[in-house]
């Protein structure tokens, strides 16, 4: 199944790289958003199947905020990407039913494996 994926990452180079990977695996990139507002705007236009979400946007934790809004408004879940995935950070995402976690610096294979797992768990529902 080809999924529609929203990428939320404030570092444009990394966002672009993720978009390349997702598109290369045959999925559609809905948009590359840089902050919670951009993520909501994109998702309001068209609902993504899930988001690839950087936890720390602009040095804060606003990726969590973006993920929460996507989840609460539309039930859109996220794969979380971060350079810090300690147990405390993971615990903060628990209520948002995370689809997976990928540590930075990521191996493209890890990103794609997480995307495939997400696609599977979403199409089962």
């Amino acid at each position: 199944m080809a999924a529609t994926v929203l990428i939320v990452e404030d570092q444009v180079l990394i966002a672009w790289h993720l978009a390349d990977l997702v598109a290369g695996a045959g999925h559609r990139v809905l948009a590359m958003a840089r902050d919670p507002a951009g993520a909501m705007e994109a998702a309001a236009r068209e609902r993504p199947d899930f988001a690839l979400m950087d936890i720390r946007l602009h040095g804060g934790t606003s990726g969590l905020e973006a993920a929460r809004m996507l989840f609460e408004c539309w039930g859109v879940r996220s794969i979380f990407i971060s350079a810090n995935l300690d147990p405390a950070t993971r615990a903060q995402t628990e209520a948002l039913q995370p689809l997976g976690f990928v540590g930075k610096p990521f191996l493209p294979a890890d990103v794609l494996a997480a995307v495939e797992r997400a696609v599977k768990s979403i199409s089962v529902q």
Partner: protein
Amino acid sequence: MSETPETILNVNDNEAARYATTRILHRAGFKVLEAGTGGEALQIIREDLPPLVILDINLPDLNGVEVCRRIKTDPNTSSTMVLQMSATNIAVIDRVNSLAAGADSFLVEPVEPEELEAVSRALLRLYRSEAALRRALAERELLLKEVNHRVKNSLQLVLSMLSLQGHRFKEPETRELFAKAISRVTAIAAIHERLYQDADPLTVEMHTYLTGLGAELVRASGMEENAQARLQIEVEEMRLPTEHGVAVALVVNELVMNALKHAQPLSGPAVISVRLERHGNGQVRLTVADNGAAPEQPGSEVTGLGTQLIRMLARQLNGTVSIERAAGTYAVHVTFPLQSAVSWRPPY
């Protein structure tokens, strides 16, 4: 001088004695809380977190030594200073016990007011300097976390930049050169994803590290799709010092890339296997083997960067390289001493 008076909890079931102590402390300018039982004292300590507790040994419910032990073993209250007090007739063993239970000082009643005040001030001074150290440590930890975050993010930017650039080339040679560079940088960068999530950031667990890199080599080479090659990874559970871990990963990277290019089995797909195992006598042996015909003459390869890298990295590991050729297999072994890593565990 601090503007707000420091708080001391005075615990004694004998009202007269408690009053006398409170009076001395009030005169010395402290704010005083009072408790008559051990249970009451523990509750006040948990709620108000007074920096100093003056604790009588003989209490109606809990023994003062036990109260002290509970204060000092609860991480929320363990920084509280405890001054244990008791009447003259107390045995030496009780004083020893109470200090062993974590009391910071001990006084025998009756106490001169000056001495009680001086000891209280000394303990509060200690409390303040310990608190300052704890704050400084917490700040350092935050800083370290921030720096780690930056390092990992910057490495990610390097990798993303290389990947984006690599996709823009059309010529197969250039693409291959770029893919090699990306693969090498990936092997180095990937260790950082693992290090700080571990209990021990000075060593790296090789099984997860190499398995992850293997999956990435499979993806990057596209061997899954064309089914011309298969990669098997068997890595014993072992931790290596970080710099050795990186060296091993880079050697694996070179050898697997080489095998992907050169392994040409007579029939069926190329099977490339990576093995890392203990090899007796404190040695570790890395083997990268394939079922293809051996490279005809390594003459041209010797000058390749890959071959040079393997030699230099083997030297860095204090290891030796040996090549095994047999009908239908080609194996490279790197054997090196397993260094007892400087291990680090958090002190709690």
